[in-house]
């Protein structure tokens, strides 16, 4: 089952103050099936984060299509209305970065439970699940009811992961989610990603230590200029 079908995607930046244009990537095409794990590779500045942000619509593309097969039909994320994108970000598309967006006066466990509550789960059940994931990623129990604004970088990242991975999504984008994690949390992350993959979540990720996720990787795309070729689709079962 196709989750994402990217066709001829092109992204560049116009820097008006310099009067210049800078290409990030051009004419990228690939498709992603449910439960597939795609690793993005490439040197610093190759455009890995840019591609993920473009798929999430934090960046606007200059050409091409991002056809997302949502529960509500196929929609081109490159052109979808802002409200539709916001809706899909709440329900079907997740993005895990290195940084937690803490919110004033929201405890770690409430922050983690929020996606479940928004999805209609009963609050005590959502809280129970939130604590389970905080425990799994190794956040000390004393911190669960505290505000993450004062947590260490690593602790914030663990809260971030618990929140981002608590609710299985159809598509999950990962931008170096392991960068500030200890070995234990990295192992817990890999295990959770394996579970999500088995449940059908399609994933595209950039990893600081790709070795961690070696067992999950189905395909790789190298964004280093000239390395990218439109993939031949032999790997896609017909």
């Amino acid at each position, binding site marked *: 089952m196709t989750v994402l079908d990217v066709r001829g995607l092109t992204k560049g930046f116009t820097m008006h*103050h310099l009067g210049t244009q800078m290409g990030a990537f051009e004419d990228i095409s690939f498709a992603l099936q449910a439960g597939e794990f795609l690793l993005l590779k490439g040197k610093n500045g190759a455009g890995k984060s840019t591609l993920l942000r473009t798929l999430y619509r934090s960046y606007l593309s200059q050409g091409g299509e991002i056809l997302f097969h949502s529960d509500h039909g196929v929609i081109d994320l490159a*052109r979808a*209305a802002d409200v539709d994108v*916001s809706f899909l970000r709440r329900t079907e598309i997740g993005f895990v970065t290195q940084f937690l967006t803490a919110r*004033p006066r929201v405890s770690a466990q409430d922050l983690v439970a929020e996606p479940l509550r928004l999805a209609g789960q009963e609050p005590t059940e959502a809280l129970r699940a939130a604590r389970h994931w905080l425990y799994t990623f190794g956040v000390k129990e004393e911190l669960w009811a505290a505000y993450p604004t004062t947590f260490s970088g690593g602790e914030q990242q663990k809260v971030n992961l618990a929140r981002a991975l608590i609710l299985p999504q159809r598509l999950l984008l990962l931008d170096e989610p392991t960068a500030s994690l200890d070995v234990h949390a990295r192992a817990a992350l890999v295990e959770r990603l394996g579970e999500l993959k088995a449940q059908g979540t399609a994933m595209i990720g950039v990893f600081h230590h790709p070795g961690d996720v070696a067992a999950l990787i189905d395909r790789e795309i190298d964004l280093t200029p000239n390395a990218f070729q439109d993939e031949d689709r032999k790997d896609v079962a017909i």
Partner: protein
Amino acid sequence: MMDAPQIVKTRPLLIARNVSKRYGAVQALQDVSASVYPGEVLGIVGESGSGKSTFLRCLNLEEDPDHGSYTLDLPDVQGNLFDLDRYARRMLCATRIGIVYQNPHLGLLMKHSSSGNVAERLLIAGERRFGVLREKARDALDASEFPLDRMDAPPIELSGGMQQRVQLAKAIALEPALLLLDEPTTGLDVSVQALVLDTLKKLQQERKITMVIVSHDLGVIRTLSDRVMVMKGGQVVEEGLADQVFQDPQHAYTQQLVHAKL
């Protein structure tokens, strides 16, 4: 241009179309259009004199535009609101729209008690029972995190941060469908600014009020807004999801604005 919504079927609460306003030689607004969905927060940024406050005054039905239309999708509200008579406007504003101005003098009677300022709103809307007035005023002040032991003090005796909380309490006392905020934290000390912002964020999360907020402080806009609209010279030059406008601004003016503040 993005496609029309395909998944979300809810109608926008607020639709403004081609709102224009000229003051003598100054074209303060030129065909400004905006839609805001229920529960959404629209942030407006732009240089001084770009028409932001004028637009909010139009949305608060304080100002008559030269042309344009404005609708609110509410059960008993129909047609172009700019066509309403004075009385209907006053009722609609008192019951459905709340506003917080940068300058508390515009929103408050500075020498009346703070609780009285909040209750005034309820009076206009027809509430006459003294006990209910006082209780509702207290609840609204409490929700705005105003220290209740000061609720009978006049705003003129209060700090700037507290004055903004009184304005906010007045604005939300009737659970408005739409909350308009014009530089609600500007002019406050940085630490007080953070507290007021925190209160706004809490209200937004708990009550899911639809908001339009104007601020020069991009941090404020970034913290509160779902979508952002950028104005220059009375026109909208760019709009989009908040993270997109801040991370990948398209228009030269927006790039300058974002980069200057980073």
